[in-house]
């Protein structure tokens, strides 16, 4: 049976009772230091409302000077009107050696008769599913000329999909998740879409990651899939292809200094980027991870039309591995008494569920990202990035993502950097090749 909360009712209440409209606002509002002017400017920029060029040129120079001062490899010739050191979507590069199941049984319906759409891979666990599609033209021609080769990650679409047939539109990709029967209870599905050009630009590889981002999975069966009996519909109209004209800076790795330099470029120019992209007045730059270095390049992007409308029936076996941890180990690892601790490992996530002692309700679970990782058979390692949630029903839930680095970077104040909501380096792994799992410096699993 569907569940709802008091919060939903309040959000959908028609109007606030009149007697409470007289509440002293100073006792309601929190001092956030947020200025209305700043917000209005940012909103107008994002929506493409008109803005003066003069202001942005000044910002551009400041940004370039700042970049030069931090020692990044920025050429002084970049200070010209048609260059902008801005930061688009950070393509951290996805890589995986995942357990991709055979997707031949997945029914694909394609509306556009000029396209072939094939599901190349399908994997996931009870709360996330990853789908890889290969799209080609029937006549075998490339989608875009050979100069354009850069993969462009879609803006992170962690919009919440409604449990009914409400589409979520992320730029030019629309995703609809339907179900044939009464849906299981969940409070939201997040999704991420990214694509790349392969095979001499004759193939567009599109990847969709769906995740149940419900915060409070209480009462849900741990072994019950969110995905069974659902039809996933993906509609696309176009994507952006990019080419690098000039590499402006290159970082060997995303160490903290590199990230800080990047953040300074990003934060000072984010509104500038939006303005110029919307008005098509500047070429823009992006960061591309080629497997070895992170290159900041100046490039151009253009839209490529690939209209398709496909639907997939999701009804697959949950592909994950369950590992139980004894109570003593779990309690030592997490710092508070835990029982019935289970790890569920899939290509996309490591989930941790445990019951905690109610007398410790509300206490924080220990989690040290530097000392939490999976080590593969070949010795390579992936750190685990967590969202740690407690709820009062006495269940600890942690959804851990595999990342290349222990942190996605932070600024001088220690605030985590967030590149326009794009993930820096979300990874997928082949969980069958995991040799060891270490949490908070303690081994909880060894093959």
């Amino acid at each position, binding site marked *: 049976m569907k*569940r709802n909360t008091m919060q939903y009712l309040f959000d*959908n209440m028609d*109007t606030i*009772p009149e007697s409470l409209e007289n509440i002293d606002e100073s006792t309601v509002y929190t001092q956030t230091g*947020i200025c209305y002017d700043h917000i209005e400017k940012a909103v107008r920029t994002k929506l493409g409302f008109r803005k003066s060029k003069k202001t942005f040129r000044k910002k551009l120079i400041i940004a370039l000077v700042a970049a030069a001062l931090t020692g990044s490899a920025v050429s002084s010739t970049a200070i010209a009107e048609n260059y902008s050191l801005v930061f688009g979507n950070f393509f951290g590069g996805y890589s995986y050696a995942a357990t991709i199941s055979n997707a031949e049984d997945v029914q694909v319906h394609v509306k556009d008769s000029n396209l072939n759409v094939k599901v190349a891979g399908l994997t996931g666990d009870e709360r996330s599913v990853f789908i890889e599609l290969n799209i080609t033209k029937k006549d075998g021609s490339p989608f875009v000329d050979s100069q354009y080769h850069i993969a462009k990650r879609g803006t992170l679409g962690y919009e919440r999909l409604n449990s009914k047939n409400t589409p979520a539109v992320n730029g030019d990709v629309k995703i609809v998740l339907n179900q044939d029967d009464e849906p299981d209870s969940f409070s939201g599905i997040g999704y991420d879409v990214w694509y790349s050009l392969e095979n001499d630009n004759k193939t567009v590889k599109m990847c969709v990651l769906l995740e149940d981002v419900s915060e409070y999975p209480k009462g849900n069966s741990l072994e019950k899939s969110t995905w069974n009996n659902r039809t996933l519909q993906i509609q696309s109209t176009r994507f952006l292809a990019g080419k690098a004209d000039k590499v402006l800076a290159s970082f060997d790795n995303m160490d903290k200094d590199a990230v800080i330099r990047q953040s300074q470029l990003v934060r000072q120019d984010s509104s500038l980027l939006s303005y110029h992209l919307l008005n098509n007045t500047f070429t823009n730059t992006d960061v591309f991870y080629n497997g070895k270095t992170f290159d900041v390049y100046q490039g151009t992007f253009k839209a490529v039309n690939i209209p398709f409308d496909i639907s997939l029936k999701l009804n697959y076996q949950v592909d994950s591995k369950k590992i139980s941890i004894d109570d003593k180990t779990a309690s030592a690892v997490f710092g508070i008494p835990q029982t019935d601790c289970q790890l569920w490992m899939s290509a996309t996530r490591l989930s941790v569920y445990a019951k905690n002692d109610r007398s410790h309700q*509300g206490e924080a679970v220990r989690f040290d*990202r530097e000392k939490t990782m999976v080590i593969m058979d070949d010795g390579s390692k992936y750190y685990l990035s967590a969202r740690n949630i407690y709820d009062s029903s006495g269940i600890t839930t942690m959804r851990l993502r595999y990342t290349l680095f222990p942190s*996605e970077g932070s600024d001088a104040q220690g605030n985590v950097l967030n590149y326009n909501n794009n993930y820096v380096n979300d990874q997928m792994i082949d969980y069958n090749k995991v040799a060891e799992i270490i949490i908070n410096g303690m081994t909880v699993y060894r093959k």
Partner: protein
Amino acid sequence: MNDSELARKLKKKEEKAFETVIRQYTPLVATIVRNVSKGLLSKEDIEETVTDVFVTLWKNTDSIIEDKLKGYLCRIARTRTLNRLSAVRNHEVLNIDDYDLEDDFSLSAEVEKNAAAAQLREIISEIEMPDREIIIRYYYYAQNTTKISEVMGLNLHTVKSKLQRTRSKIKSKLLERGYV
């Protein structure tokens, strides 16, 4: 301009009305983002989230119901904040210190949820003060119990028990009206 007029103008994509909405509601939206995020977002992230809220509003003016503009904004603010929190990685552990499982009860269908929400205003008006103010501050303005006790000059334990009792009352009243 009241909310209904603003909503009507927003639906017609009038930029001036939109500016008014931003000016009027930036403090509320920023407060909700700050409160829902429980201080885990930096100022820059709060600004970006607040910006995203208004951008979302503009892109979805068709969904605005004229006398529900404020509630709609609050809902967008909550959703965007939760989305952003799920994208931010940090060393801190997120504790939902005020969440209570007893919040949850079942409403069987989408239609009934919306009908129940519409009834809520009437139900709240039947609740005596200061309980009424507490529940509004908690759910509508996303203030935590500590803050509520501070501004209302009540003992923290008192605020928590009144909150719990009021929730039960609301649930009972919804039950009487056949929504639970």
